[in-house]
């Protein structure tokens, strides 16, 4: 069973977006790719996301949605996981800028997993991404189709109040 972690309530503004892109581009990131951004350089990817937000005058507000798809143990080949990751990321690619990468097993997640980082502002019409239960349920079904695994998802709140 594949597990989808949806991180959508984030504090820290654009700094959080910068950090998330850096995380998805570090040395552990394999088969990195992007839709509407430069996947080879996270600083440029950040600037490209920022330019879209500036165009629509929506720099403040929710900076990103971060989705982690953890595959089950049946996925043993990194290339297969990367292929799944690309197809899952393409779900958002026709409306939002996306950077994605696949990680091997690590201490946080004991299985291969794909990070998908989505700019919260659409490059088509400037609308903010909607990640309610219905939208994520539809995405979950799409991931099920792509991976052939049953999927479930949960929302994670990364909010830390410093005020």
């Amino acid at each position, binding site marked *: 069973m594949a597990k989808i972690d949806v991180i959508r*309530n*984030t*504090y820290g503004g654009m700094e959080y977006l910068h950090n998330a892109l850096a995380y998805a581009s570090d040395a552990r990131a394999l088969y990195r*790719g*992007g*839709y*509407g*951004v*430069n*996947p*080879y*350089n996270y600083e*440029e990817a950040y*600037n*490209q996301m920022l*330019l*879209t937000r*500036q*165009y*629509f*005058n*929506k*720099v*403040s*507000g*929710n900076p990103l949605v971060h989705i982690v798809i953890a595959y089950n143990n049946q996925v043993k080949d990194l290339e297969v996981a990367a292929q799944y990751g690309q197809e899952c990321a393409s779900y958002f*690619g026709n409306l939002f*800028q996306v950077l994605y990468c696949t990680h091997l097993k690590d201490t946080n997640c004991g299985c291969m997993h794909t990070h998908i980082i989505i700019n919260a502002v659409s*490059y*088509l*019409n*400037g*609308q903010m991404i909607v990640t309610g239960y219905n939208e994520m349920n539809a995405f979950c079904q799409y991931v099920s189709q792509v991976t052939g695994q049953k999927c479930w998802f949960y929302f994670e709140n990364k*909010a830390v*109040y410093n*005020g």
Partner: protein
Amino acid sequence: MSDYKYKNKKRAHTRDKSERKDKVTSVRCSENEFAKIQKNAKAAGMTVNNYLVTTGANGSNALTPELMVEIQNQINYACSVVELNAPDEVVTMQEGANNLWRKLM
């Protein structure tokens, strides 16, 4: 406890003051022009208000994020084809794309 969460949520997603749409104006146009504006806004997936503000605020720029993303996706595809044989070309192509992105603003 619930009040604490609500307060934090509001703080997290409040628009910056400079981005708040608190100016109101009216526009005079003919029936035909208004119909065209409505049609174009619908085609762009925007409300009439958002369409007029976005096109008005960025009117002098021929580049749009939509166009830039299309260009970027084509360059990404080209880079994925050549990256094994000519990694230097990847850097050159992405630099070219980035220069175009900078012209967006």
